[in-house]
């Protein structure tokens, strides 16, 4: 043989270094957060220098004392350096030398340190995402409390007006941007291979990269706060956005990084679900969370590139002074609105679909009943995903679209309530006459019904042009989407964190604290956002820090409720951290008595998930049917495997 056919994988192997007695050198040669930060800092400086070298003689720079080219290049190069430091580019460079693709390394035993490295183990990536998303969410939540503190009084101010709008924009972007991965990141990555009976992901490096995009994205977005923020808010409307300062460039780059993260995660998720299902795992037997992930992935793949285009157009207008968003030179600010909302409205469903999938996935476990009309829920997920591409113009009802187009988009928006209704009714039907176990996750799931009812019904009103004309840009709309997104998605995520902690960490959270935190969160959430419907109908606009004096009592009620909500969430997080780090009460195997394949592997989840490739016999929702035969054969013998794999697959 003329060549070595077994080259190393993308990252250096830690075991090699240990074998050479260089254990102390491991952190510096295996790619981790520290080396990534160093790499990022060096490349950042280089990018800034390059930008100044290229563009310092631009007339706009000379006159305006600002060089957006340098800012963009420093952020882009900084991100490149981040990945160099992380070791993520080793593999693509090895490919340039013609090395064969090899299995990425998996450690024999998971360590705490591994979670700060460029790991390609889907379980490690899932945990990285879990805590990453939790951090991003908590930061976004703190910013929300900053908003509510300001709105305690219409006349006495905590923040200056521009600071207030910075906080609003930062909160909105942090939540809408980072939370797109709050289900696919932790639960999709950790659970999907287990659920479909696979030992691995299709593209583990893409999976790892998808997470490591989120960290610089978060840091860059956060850094906008001390660079003047971005006055245009999370929707980034032009021409305000093309006139903004460096904070707006941070918004551009951070959102674009998140877009790349979503594309990487979606390609991996799609390829895994289509190709890595175990024998017998037909489409009709696939867990509903897998359906949720694949519909979300397809929606992301088609919508996110257009967002990327929009951000790119905005950055060109800001950096090299093209005029695509500026009508005075042949552009149009509506171009941004179209590009942004072509992603932005599907994005709402990128948040909602995984929330529904999680809800329907967990409900039968606690209702001890099969999912009611399983195929209908799948149809609902697909229907929402498809229709989500035909509704974006309803965001332009009030901003100058052709009035003749309004009825069409009103109709398509109303139509989407039908597949959404499928999902809601499937969930209701699943609970109906079930032997409900009121465990903490189930409480959160039941709350999803209540919350989404408010969000969904008001959404139908919002889609009607006459109502939209009245409530557009008001707190009514804001309350609506907080009910649909926080009330549905985040509650489902709270349920899922509680539900899957025994599987992921082998730890049972404290039930008493869990129930207390649930009731505080549920009551305070409704107490915060229900009054905002009234506030909105009474005429209070969003993004304005002064309001009519007559609305002060309602606003004070909302702000105090928001503090209580924050306390409830804090209690939930304390329960999680305390249970994981201090009490560490073992959960035992399968504490919820789930039939899901993911629960059959025991704790800790084996390195390769399954000893052998399992053979799946049925869907995992046969609760209360009297059929206790297992969902899958984890150690299949020949005739069983042959019967399944030789049959319809």
């Amino acid at each position, binding site marked *: *043989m*003329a*060549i070595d*056919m077994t080259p190393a994988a993308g990252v250096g192997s830690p075991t090699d270094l240990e074998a050479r007695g260089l254990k102390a050198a491991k952190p510096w040669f295996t790619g981790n957060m520290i080396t990534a930060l160093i790499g990022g800092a060096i490349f950042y400086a280089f990018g800034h220098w390059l930008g100044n070298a290229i563009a310092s003689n631009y007339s706009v720079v000379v006159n305006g004392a600002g060089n957006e080219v340098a800012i963009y290049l420093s952020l882009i190069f900084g991100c490149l350096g981040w990945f160099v430091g992380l070791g993520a580019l080793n593999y693509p460079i090895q*490919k*340039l030398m*013609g*090395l*064969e*693709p090899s299995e990425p390394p998996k450690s024999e035993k998971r360590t705490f340190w591994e979670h700060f490295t460029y790991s390609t183990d889907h379980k490690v990536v899932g945990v990285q995402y879990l805590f990453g998303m939790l951090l991003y969410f908590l930061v976004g939540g703190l910013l929300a409390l900053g908003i509510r503190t300001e709105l305690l009084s219409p006349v006495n101010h905590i923040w200056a007006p521009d600071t207030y709008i910075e906080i609003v924009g930062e909160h909105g972007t942090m939540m809408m941007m980072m939370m797109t991965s709050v289900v696919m990141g932790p639960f999709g990555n950790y659970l999907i291979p287990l659920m479909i009976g*696979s*030992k*691995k992901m*299709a*593209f583990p490096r893409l999976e790892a990269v998808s997470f490591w995009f989120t960290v610089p994205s978060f840091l860059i977005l956060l850094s906008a706060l001390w660079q003047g923020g971005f006055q245009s808010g999370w929707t980034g409307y032009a021409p305000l956005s093309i006139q903004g300062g460096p904070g707006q460039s941070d918004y551009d780059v951070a959102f674009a990084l998140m877009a790349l993260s979503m*594309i990487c995660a979606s390609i991996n998720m*799609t*390829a895994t679900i*289509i*190709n*890595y*299902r175990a*024998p017998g795992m037909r489409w009709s037997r696939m867990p509903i969370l897998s359906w949720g992930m694949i519909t979300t992935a397809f929606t992301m*793949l*088609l*919508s996110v*590139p*257009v967002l*990327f*285009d*929009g951000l*790119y*157009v905005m950055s*060109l*207008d800001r950096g*090299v*002074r*093209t*005029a*695509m968003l*500026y009508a*005075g*030179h*042949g*552009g*149009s600010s*509506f*171009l941004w609105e179209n*590009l942004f909302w*072509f992603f932005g409205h599907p994005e709402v469903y990128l948040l909602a679909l995984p929330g529904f999938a999680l809800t329907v996935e967990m409900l039968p476990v606690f209702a001890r009943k099969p999912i009611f009309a399983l195929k209908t829920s799948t149809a609902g997920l697909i229907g929402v995903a498809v229709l989500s591409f035909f509704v974006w113009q309803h965001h332009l009802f009030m901003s100058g679209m052709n009035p003749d187009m309004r009825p069409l988009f009103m109709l398509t928006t109303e139509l989407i309530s039908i597949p959404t209704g499928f999902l809601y009714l499937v969930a209701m039907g699943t609970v109906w006459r079930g032997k409900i176990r009121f465990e903490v996750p189930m409480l959160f799931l039941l709350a999803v019904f209540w919350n989404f009812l408010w969000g969904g019904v008001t959404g139908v009103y919002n889609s009607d042009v006459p109502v939209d004309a009245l409530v557009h840009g008001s707190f009514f709309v804001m309350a609506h989407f907080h009910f649909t997104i926080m009330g549905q998605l985040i509650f489902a995520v709270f349920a899922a964190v509680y539900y899957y902690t025994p599987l992921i960490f082998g730890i049972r959270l404290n039930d008493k604290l869990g129930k207390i935190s649930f009731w505080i969160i549920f009551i305070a959430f409704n107490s915060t956002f229900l009054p905002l419907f009234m506030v909105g109908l009474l005429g209070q606009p969003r993004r304005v820090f002064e309001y009519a004096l007559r609305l002060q009592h309602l606003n004070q009620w909302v702000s105090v409720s928001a503090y209580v909500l924050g306390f409830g969430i804090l209690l939930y997080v304390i329960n999680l951290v305390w249970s994981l780090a201090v009490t560490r009460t073992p959960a035992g195997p399968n504490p919820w008595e789930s039939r899901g394949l993911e629960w059959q592997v025991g704790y800790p989840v084996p390195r390769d998930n399954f000893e*052998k*490739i399992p053979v799946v016999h049925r869907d995992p929702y046969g609760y209360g049917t009297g059929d206790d035969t297992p969902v899958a054969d984890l150690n*299949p013998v*020949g*005739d*069983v495997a*042959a019967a399944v*794999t*030789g049959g319809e*697959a």
Partner: protein
Amino acid sequence: MATDVQSADAQPVIDEEQYYHDAQLGALWTASRTLIPVVAATFGGIYFAYFYLRSLNSNGLWDPHGQTASKILGLSILLLVVAGTSLQLFASRRLRRGFSTDFIVGTATNALLLLIATGLQIWELTRLPFPPAASGYAGVFIAFAPINALCIGLSAYWVFTLMMRAIRSYNFYRPEGGIGVSAHRAAENFRANLDGFGAYGIFFMLLSILSWYLFYVLH
């Protein structure tokens, strides 16, 4: 999906290596075909901007002077992409007939043509006959050109990695008739990767023709 199930009394029941090898081939197929709508959506956003601003023609400033970027360079870039991709497809056919050397030469030429196209696209940006804010067309072209250069450059990277794999494994697969016909799993993986590029390459060639028509002919 093929599952190599052996007889009932044999162990292991399912040939795991073959199972995951098949899954990997399927994943390569899925990913390369998924890349097509992703790139289509990326260019679609640019085309949307093109048609939106063109039809809107704000203040008569879509393209007031009928100026375009260099048509000679634009046509050269297109021809390089078309020629390179066509050559690649031909080289891939030769590979499947066992002519690995032909494949390596064809792919190396394609990589070179694509690199030249990338360079020309970047060079064209430095020689525009209009400033960035001159018109709607100017802005959209400046948005299109770097994305196009990036996509052509990444295509060059892709074919280069394929070429290097073919060179590296040349002697290894020679006894079996070359990497294009070998039944070795790594060779199948290579061919799946190459097929993926073939599908993507055809798509990108068509996209390049459309882009050329929009930015240099229709404008």
